[in-house]
């Protein structure tokens, strides 16, 4: 099984190299004449008047948290999906109970307006 993963590891390394090489080439071939106006953050021509790393709406956090929870649900669904034929009706029913419990959560989320985005 590990033999199959060796090409994958190499592929990831090639992917990283394919990212680094153009950057190095670009740095070598392109001009390098920095000045303060060029290096300032783009702000449509205005002076930047506050730190760009500001606080933002809590909804983004909520989306991220809900994403984790549903991602876990998907992680549970993956092994189930590929052995459903082997585990038969019992496996089917146990997953349906699992999904039913989580659908309650989804409905709660929906009713509470956590999915609304104003």
């Amino acid at each position, binding site marked *: *099984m*590990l*033999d*199959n*993963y060796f090409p994958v*590891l190499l592929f990831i390394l090639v992917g990283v190299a394919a990212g680094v090489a153009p950057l190095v080439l670009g740095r070598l071939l392109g001009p390098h004449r920095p000045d303060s106006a060029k290096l300032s953050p783009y702000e449509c021509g205005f002076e930047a008047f506050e730190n760009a*790393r*500001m*606080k*933002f*709406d*809590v909804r*983004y*956090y*909520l989306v*991220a*948290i*809900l*994403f*984790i*929870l549903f*991602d*876990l*649900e*998907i*992680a*549970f669904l*993956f*092994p*189930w999906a*590929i*052995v459903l034929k*082997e*585990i038969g009706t*019992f*496996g089917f029913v*146990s*997953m349906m*109970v*699992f*999904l039913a*419990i*989580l659908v*309650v*959560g*989804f409905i*709660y*989320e929906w009713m*509470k*307006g*956590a999915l609304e985005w*104003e």
Partner: protein
Amino acid sequence: MTETLVFYLFAAMTVLAALRVITARNPVQAALFLVLAFCSMAGIWLLLEAEFLAMTLILVYVGAVMVLFLFVVMMLDIDLEQLREGFWRWFPFGILLAAVMVGEMFWVLGNRLTAESGLSTVVQHAADYSNTKELGRLIYTDYVYPFELAAVLLLIAIVAAIALTLRRRKGTKTQVVSQQIAVKREDRVRLVSMPAESKIGSAKKQER
């Protein structure tokens, strides 16, 4: 041979990354080192042929949990000085906690480490072996009760997340689309009738 080499490579990366997590000054960098630690950990799990767990570690922890961490850490403007204030006061407590955790891990793993079988040898499997199928055959049948408990845990987590984050905060700027659409011309534009300036008017008359 190669496997041992790869193992030490991943292990060294994990340890170094984990060290940088607690020594990096910038919280964002610390979070990114945690990502690196997870990735090399996934590599080690792969060496143990725990394919599904390794992928899930990447998918759930790196792909989801750390995204949330980054979100939080990037935007919170953590004040480093304030964080460092109580360091020495809490230091003994931290050490105690760490010692308890190490003891617990030994308690759980130690028995098996000393026994000849168990963790010391890894069973090599053929290329078509599917770790995921193996897991699937067990989780939904033999371990169905903990599996359903996991669902309940997730449900509690959903409810808690919404209860904790979903409340109106003061000072947030939001636009009310319906109000924007319902605006009439009278609300925004004031027509002012101004009498024409007489001087230009009279000048024009004179030209004629």
